[in-house]
């Protein structure tokens, strides 16, 4: 069996608020194997996004051991973290975060701008991904000309363009109605079936039901159901 995508041992994370230390994560132990489809659940403010930001290397833990894609994250500098995100992680956010002035195709291509190891035919690959989510007719559109569900599908294509090991989705259906949410979850399921490791953060049990594994976060530690 291949090495786990993500290993977290005794991870803590604190924020300084004023002159106080707010400890959000109090010793998280979590291993995510390749090809898993995991949901992370918890109430608002429980630290789900904090955990996801750590897993996505957007932020670094206060203490603990963290291995991602075989790299010891705690030892990396800012540029190396950027490179790690670029190659190994795809992000999907609740509010899409597409560039309003760029076309659908250009939005999907943004991560390739920052790619160190150059790949050929990125445009063909972007078009292929857009076709998989049924947006091949919308490539020249601007995000404002798309529905919420369509925008989120573009964001998923953007997350996949560099072929990352790990796809992280923070409340990807939070701004969508239940029928559109179902579509998005189907896209994520299919992505997982094609071999991608997927982690979805949600407080909705119906969404979590798509995943094969569910983790609960409460009082700064995680429990598995």
């Amino acid at each position, binding site marked *: 069996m291949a090495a786990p995508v993500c290993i977290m041992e005794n991870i803590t994370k604190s924020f300084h608020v004023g002159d106080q230390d707010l400890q959000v994560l109090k010793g998280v132990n979590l291993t995510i194997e390749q090809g898993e489809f995991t949901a992370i659940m918890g109430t608002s403010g429980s630290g789900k996004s904090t955990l996801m930001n750590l897993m996505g290397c*957007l932020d670094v833990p206060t203490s603990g051991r963290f291995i991602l894609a075989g790299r010891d994250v705690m030892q990396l500098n800012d*540029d190396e973290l*950027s490179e790690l995100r670029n190659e190994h992680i795809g992000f999907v956010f609740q509010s899409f975060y597409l560039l*309003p002035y760029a076309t659908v195709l250009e939005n999907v291509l943004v991560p390739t701008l920052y790619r160190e190891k150059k790949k050929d035919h990125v445009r063909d690959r972007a078009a292929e991904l857009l076709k998989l989510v049924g947006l091949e007719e919308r490539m020249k559109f601007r995000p404002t000309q798309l529905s919420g569900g369509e925008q989120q599908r573009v964001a998923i294509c953007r997350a996949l363009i560099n072929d990352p090991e790990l796809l992280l989705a923070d409340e990807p259906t939070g701004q969508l109605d239940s029928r559109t949410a179902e579509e998005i979850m189907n896209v994520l399921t299919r992505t997982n079936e094609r071999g991608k490791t997927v982690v979805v953060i949600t407080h909705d049990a119906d969404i979590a039901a798509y995943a094969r594994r569910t983790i609960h976060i409460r009082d700064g530690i995680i429990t598995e159901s």
Partner: protein
Amino acid sequence: MERFSLLLIQSYEAVKAFKLRTLFCLVSVALGIAAITIIVAATEGAYKKAFDIVASFGPDSVMLMGGSEESRAIGQREKTITLDDLEAIRQAFPTAYVVAPSSWVGSVTVSYKGNRYQSQVVGSSSDYSIVWTWPVVEGSDFTEDDIRRYANVGIMGQEVARELFGDQSPVGKFVQIRNLPVQIVGVLSERGTSPGGGSLDNRIIMPYTTVMKKLINEQRYVHAMRLRFTDLENIDGRVEELKRLLRYRHRIPDGQPDDFRIFTSKDIVKFLVALTGSLVVFIGIVGVISLIVAGFVLANLFLLSVKERIKEIGIRRAVGARKQDILMQFLTEAVMITTAGGVVGFILGLVSAQLLTYVAEFPVYFSWKAFAIGLVLSWVVGVGFGLHPARQAANLVPIEAIRT
């Protein structure tokens, strides 16, 4: 390459998307660059014109005028240079291959068969066209013999010839100057305007003897004298010697000012540079100030833009942009806008400099140099003032930027 062109495309999209920001930055940079373009064109024009004038005045030439600086300043024209001075100078300077006297009447009515024209009559020795490097294009110069005989002959400038004779040739015809019938023996080539701006083609040249005796009734004094030296390399020393000789002959005690003035081609260049210089300094200050203002406009609008685009910066960082990538992106946007401003400014400068030449005697000359300087300056503004906002953008903490 693909990456670089993607960066350019995306920057271009941003430049297009944030239209107001682009417009304000572009216009303010364009104004500054326009002013700078005019300065460069004017400076180059002045040098070119100075070069032309020196070439036609003759770098080996010296002009000696009667009267001191002071008397000229109060509008008085003293007569101080005599024909005896002329003879003495001729003997003292063997390398002076031209020593030509000059006397003139500022404004005389010349008529031919009912046509009248207000002209300037200049008395000279027989080799006027050599003295001034000013060729006779029709007929010939008057002769040494004409000088001796006080002959009523003359050669005329293009403008007088046109006004009095139309398409006819004036050579051989008689014109009336005051009550003097004068036979025209030659026509000078077109000369254009003097450094001061007056036309040079409205004059009639006659033997200085004739002018002195019959037009201004003067036996001893001439207005000016022109010298040309074969030893161009010694010209500064020759001017000093000339000064000493004249002060000695005019018995001017030490400490007293000269009662004559000497001009060389260097003085003419100085005069011209002073003429355009003040205007260049003025536009220069305006140009530099407006470029600095343009820079601050750009810096502020970009800071606003960075605030507005926090989410964009956050997502770019999330998908792998390094700090320097964000920095490069904002700098590229800034330089793109200022480059466009530079090009617009150059065109604006071109047009307004052209307009300036209509309202004032203002030489302009456009070269690639003017364009290159404008372009480089617009890049300097783009990078210089875009750097601070670009740094702000690059140093944003990604999780702060994308927290909802």
